[in-house]
């Protein structure tokens, strides 16, 4: 192998021919490859073959490269030499001046054309704004206009014909062999040409005639056209369509099915709804968390893999859901086991409560002197309570509806809304938008309360923003009206109409919900403005509980807004407002106590999802227990304001320990009337303590999982210990014990000392392999890097100078050659001139001599 490479390529070229290989194609070279002339190839011998080095100089073509160099010199140095001592210069500034031959493509030419035009435009001011191009376009020397003029329709098909020879002729001329072939060739061709010409003339003539005729027909057509139309209308009588035709038509014109969304089955709908809810729930959870607040479950993955790179991926990808919300298969909100069971419990409680309510309905009425007037209403209320779960629209009248299971309530909704429409013909379907609040109230007052919500609903439907742009304002107005109406209804509600008002609120709540979803920003702003106004009112006298409508607004906010957000433009101000009331307002009467409990309840409802708490609510509950403790005059129990440990107000709810009359009071929830009445009755005392105990339970469960909740509930616990429950009915005692055990568990919850959040282990730094170049050349001394570099550079310079000198030498050589050629040329010319002159001169001399000789001859003669 080594030997082979050593032999010159020139030899190899011949060797290839000589040695016969088994495969005849092995040596085949592509036809396009240039064959090297072996005499032109110069080989450089290689002493050693070095692996991995590509040798560029093993062979060269001295002749070719010399020619190349000479050519280059001719183009550059030669040109320069020619221009030497000359002042004028020819410069090529065309686009693509270095391009030649094939490189001059159409594009380049187009560019040149455009540039040329621009240049001309610049020179000539007139043409600059000339839109009609002066340039005359030509085709084969004729202007396009001219061609246009003489265009003849007939001439189109001529070209095809005259090139073609007819079959007979070809047969005769090409393959013929009959007797006519005997004729001599020339005459035959002449004959053929003549025939051809004749035929052409005939065809032309025929065409002219045809053309004339068509023209004539065209001109006459206009006269005829009216006749044609008439005939077709009158005389073309339609045939009686038979069954088949009819069927065909029907099939043709039958409306084709439009591509539409496929009918959504109920499962799909449920699925979609579930997805929507899940999405909303996820958003809500995101908002619930404060910026930068980590979800506890995320912050501490239970197991850390050694490969954990802290890039957000956890080795145990699936996070286990802890206290967060989940959905059951029906798409209903459920919670994990723990909270679930709590919910069940609460539901049971609720049912029990409702049940009790039913049972004790009659006796309660007997007990309450104040409420005797509304016995009938109470009955109705009891009904309402029993089917609370049924929507309001179906709640009142349609008995058949109430029997249906609650589950398929949602899809039915539209139907339900329609049905009563048929029944109540007295309700208008379209209602004009009332212009102001007065009219609105008048409009509503014309109907029964149950119908009012339907009226509102229809009003919204008639003024839906999708129908008309103006309605956008109208719905906002309706919303404002409703809020105003709520304000008016509750601000001066008495014990007689308070329930009615709450029923009204209940009825319009879905409408409010729909409304606020139509334009969340505007209506939220209205709601916020209302709350701001109420707050400004409250600020003037913060020692006093605000009137009832404020609480109702809070409840509306709770229903309409996402109160679990970490920061919400409406819910947060409401929180502040509520805590302000709870911490500042003095508790003086039944109404105040009920309102306080209402607010505490609201606080718990607001924070139910987010598990956020308001300390004022806890303070209030502590204070309420404090109010229940019968105190001896000297005894001073520490209590946080707004409650006072002195004065007559500190025993509002207290019951003497030896009292007997309280034992028989039945269990019932707080009543709407409590919110408007001042006097504290015995049953209210029992009611309020019972419900506060339950609220304490709720509040405690709310915060029980937080670190440090011990301290939050411990004041309540201490206060509870001071309460003596002997005079209370048994259910209060039970509740008391339950609350106490719950509180004990929370108060005695073990505390873990605070440690800083576990620091994430830092990933080890991976080391890149460090490769050093080792110069181990013994011939050269070891040099430092800079010196090495310098030596290299010096060497390079040397080589470059050498090369440059060589180039210069070659240049001078080339120039000398030119010069010598010029010299030789001029010498040659001169010599020829001299020769010619000599020749002429000698000729002249000859002639002269000849003349002389003749003269001499003449003289002689």
């Amino acid at each position, binding site marked *: 192998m080594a030997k082979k490479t050593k032999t010159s390529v020139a030899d190899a070229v011949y060797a290839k021919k000589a040695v016969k290989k088994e495969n005849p194609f092995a040596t085949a070279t592509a036809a396009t490859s240039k064959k090297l002339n072996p005499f032109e190839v110069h080989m450089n011998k290689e002493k050693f073959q070095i692996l991995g080095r590509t040798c560029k100089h093993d062979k060269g073509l001295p002749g070719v490269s010399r020619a190349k160099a000479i050519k280059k010199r001719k183009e550059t140095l030669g040109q320069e030499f020619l221009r030497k001592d000359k002042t004028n210069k020819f410069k090529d500034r065309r686009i693509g001046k270095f391009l030649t031959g094939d490189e001059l493509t159409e594009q380049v030419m187009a560019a040149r054309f455009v540039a040329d035009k621009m240049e001309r435009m610049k020179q000539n001011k007139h043409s600059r704004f000339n839109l009609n191009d002066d340039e005359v376009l030509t085709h084969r020397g004729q202007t396009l206009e001219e061609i246009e003029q003489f265009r003849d329709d007939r001439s189109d098909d001529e070209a095809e014909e005259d090139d073609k020879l007819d079959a007979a002729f070809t047969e005769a001329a090409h393959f013929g062999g009959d007797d006519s072939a005997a004729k001599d060739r020339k005459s035959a061709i002449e004959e053929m040409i003549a025939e051809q010409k004749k035929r052409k003339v005939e065809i032309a003539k025929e065409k002219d005639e045809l053309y004339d005729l068509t023209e004539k027909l065209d001109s006459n057509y206009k006269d005829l056209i009216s006749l044609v139309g008439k005939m077709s209308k009158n005389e073309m009588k339609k045939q009686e369509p038979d069954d088949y035709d009819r069927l065909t038509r029907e099939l043709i014109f039958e409306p084709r099915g439009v591509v539409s969304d496929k009918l959504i089955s109920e499962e799909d709908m449920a699925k979609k709804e579930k997805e929507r809810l899940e999405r909303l729930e996820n958003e809500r959870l995101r908002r619930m968390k404060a910026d930068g607040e980590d979800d506890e479950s995320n912050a501490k993955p239970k197991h850390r893999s050694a490969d954990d790179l802290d890039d957000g991926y956890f080795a145990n990808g699936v996070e286990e859901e802890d206290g967060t919300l989940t959905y059951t298969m029906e798409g209903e909100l459920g919670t994990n086991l723990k909270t679930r069971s709590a919910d069940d419990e609460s539901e049971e409680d609720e049912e029990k409560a409702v049940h009790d309510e039913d049972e004790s309905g009659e006796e309660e009425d007997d007990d309450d002197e104040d409420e005797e007037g509304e016995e009938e209403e109470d009955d109705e209320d009891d009904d309402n309570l029993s089917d609370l779960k049924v929507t*309001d629209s179906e709640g009142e009248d349609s008995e058949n509806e109430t029997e249906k299971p609650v589950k398929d309530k949602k899809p039915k909704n539209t139907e339900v809304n329609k049905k009563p429409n048929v029944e109540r013909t007295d309700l208008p379907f379209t209602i004009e938008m009332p212009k102001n609040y007065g009219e609105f109230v008048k409009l509503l007052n014309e109907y029964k309360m149950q119908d009012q919500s339907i009226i509102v609903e229809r009003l919204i439907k008639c003024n839906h923003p999708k129908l008309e742009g103006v309605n956008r304002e109208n719905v906002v107005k309706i919303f404002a009206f409703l809020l105003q109406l709520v304000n008016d209804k509750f601000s001066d509600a008495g014990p007689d109409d308070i329930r009615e008002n709450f029923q009204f609120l209940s009825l319009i709540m879905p409408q409010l919900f729909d409304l606020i979803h139509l334009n969340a920003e505007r209506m939220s702003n209205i709601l916020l403005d209302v709350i701001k106004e109420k707050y400004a009112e409250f600020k003037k006298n913060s020692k006093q509980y605000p009137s009832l409508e404020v609480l109702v607004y809070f409840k509306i906010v709770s229903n309409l807004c996402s109160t679990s957000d970490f920061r919400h*433009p409406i819910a947060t101000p409401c929180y502040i407002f509520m*805590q302000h009331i709870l*911490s500042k307002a003095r508790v003086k009467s039944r109404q105040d106590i009920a309102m306080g409990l209402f607010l505490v309840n609201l606080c718990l409802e607001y924070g139910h999802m987010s598990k956020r708490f308001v300390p004022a609510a806890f303070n209030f509950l502590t204070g309420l227990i404090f109010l229940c403790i019968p105190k001896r005059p000297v005894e001073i129990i520490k209590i946080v*304001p707004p409650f006072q440990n002195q004065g007559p107000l500190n025993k509002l709810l207290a019951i003497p320990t030896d009292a007997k009359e309280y034992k028989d009071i039945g269990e019932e*929830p707080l*009543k709407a009337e409590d919110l408007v009445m001042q006097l504290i009755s015995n049953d209210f005392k029992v009611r309020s303590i019972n419900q506060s105990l339950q609220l304490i339970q709720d509040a405690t469960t709310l915060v029980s999982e937080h670190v440090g909740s011990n301290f*939050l509930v411990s004041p309540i616990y201490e206060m509870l210990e001071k309460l003596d429950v002997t005079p209370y009915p048994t259910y209060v005692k039970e509740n008391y014990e339950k609350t106490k055990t719950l509180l004990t568990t929370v108060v005695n919850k073990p505390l873990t000392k*605070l440690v800083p959040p576990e620091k994430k282990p830092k990933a080890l730094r991976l080391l890149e392999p460090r490769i050093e170049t080792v110069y181990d050349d013994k011939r050269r001394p070891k040099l430092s890097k800079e010196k090495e570099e310098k030596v290299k550079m010096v060497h390079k310079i040397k080589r470059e100078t050498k090369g440059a000198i060589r180039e210069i030498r070659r240049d001078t050589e080339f120039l000398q050659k030119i010069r010598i050629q010029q010299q030789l040329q001029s010498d040659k010319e001169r010599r020829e001139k001299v020769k010619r002159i000599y020749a002429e001169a000698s000729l002249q001399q000859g002639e002269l001599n000849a003349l002389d000789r003749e003269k001499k001859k003449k003289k002689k003669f």
Partner: protein
Amino acid sequence: MAPIETPPATNLKSKISKGLRAKANDFLNSKVKSKNLEEIIQFLDNAIKHKESLTPALLTLEVVFTQLLKRKEMFVSANKQESESEAETKYRDWLRERYEQTWNLMLSAIENCEKSQDASQALSCCMKLLAAEGKYPINVSEEPLNFPRKRLRGIIEKLLSENRLMPTLISSFKEFAEYLDVVQNCWFILSSMVKKSMTQTENVAINCLHLINAIPLNKSVQDNAKLLVALTENAPETEHFDYANTRKHINRIWNNIMTWLEPNLAESVHRQMLIVLLECVLPHLERPVLLTDFLMDSLDCGGAVSLLALQGVFTLIQKHNITYPNVYEKLYSMFEPEIFHTKYKARLFYLADIFLSSTHLPENLVAAFMKRLARLSLIAPPQDTVIMLQFIGNLLLRHLGLKRLICATQATEVSTDPFNMHESDPIKSNAIDSSLWEIVALQKHAIPSVATAARFISQPLPKKEWDLSEILEIKEDDIFEEETTTSNKKSKQQYALAFEKPETMFLPKNDQFQRHWSLI
């Protein structure tokens, strides 16, 4: 300087009813209609008796008498002019009588008028007449002083009424406290009026203290040197303001006040005394060290009184080099839940911040303060919670050793908090072994600003301390305001709505109300 500021004409017109105005004009235009003046005065008298609105009559009379004073129609020159007819003398005497009558009526209006607006109107009318009289005196010979001290004395006597407290009146008197001569003369008059016996009626004492509080002799008053009654060129030396003299008066007054101290002194008087002491008197006292006993006794009283006393003690410590051994214990005992409902809580935090600013305090003491603050923050209103959280943060920054309260070396579990809240001695409260769980709990506070403030313990501590002075004065409504305005700036997405449609007034899920209420 405009000593008499008659309200602009339009303003007057709207206030003075037409009839009164016409009468006053008639009277001023011709002396013949003197009956009109009597009618106006009668009108005022009736109004006072029947408790009607006094303002029109008061303003009319003020204008009338200011005009009369300007015209010098009541002026009695030293040398009686012969040219003066008897009728004129008689008229002048009559005028002067009416003037005195009006003055007395006005004074009685100040004292007895129930409507605070009318009373303060009467007061300002009196002061304006006083100023006018100072400018155009009615007697030359009688008094060498230009300033009608007698009249001022009359006013002050009324202000120190026994019958009721006059906070609004005194606060409206405050607007004249910017005049140096008024302040000076007030002190002068008070020095002869404040007596020991004043404590017997609480109202007088409190009114007196309020009045003193309203006329502080602070630097701005002295520098501005605004005068209600411009001094004439030949005014005697005594008329000019003399600090030493006034100071003497102040000292005398305070000495008198100190004699009020007795075991059964009402708490409100005591508190007011301390306020007056701190805000007006203390800088002018000659020997403040004498106050030590008073302040020590007050420290033991508890509540706002001891807080104010603490501030006094602090001033004494700071400026007069006294030492007080148990000051931290006292301070510690002041952090009680009630503090959030007093006016002085900002003062307490301010003082506590200063007292605890030393980095040389023992760590267990500071830890006790931190734990106590943390406990209180679980009860406090949001604005105070934020203050306390940042205060705790500052304490942590000052005492880096206390980081163990938030960064224990081991996550050991304890059954109860080692900290004893009921221990009165902070050093024995064992706070150093505790941890700040309360702050972790506060991270779940419903109000976002509190929750964010509480998050500082889970983040690396900042380099610089929080500036407490910015947040000391924040109130509930400020937080409310902030929440309602900042939300407007933020994006729409913020108006997040509930997505579960309620069919009744109760929530479709997780309703908390139906369990506890029967509302419909």
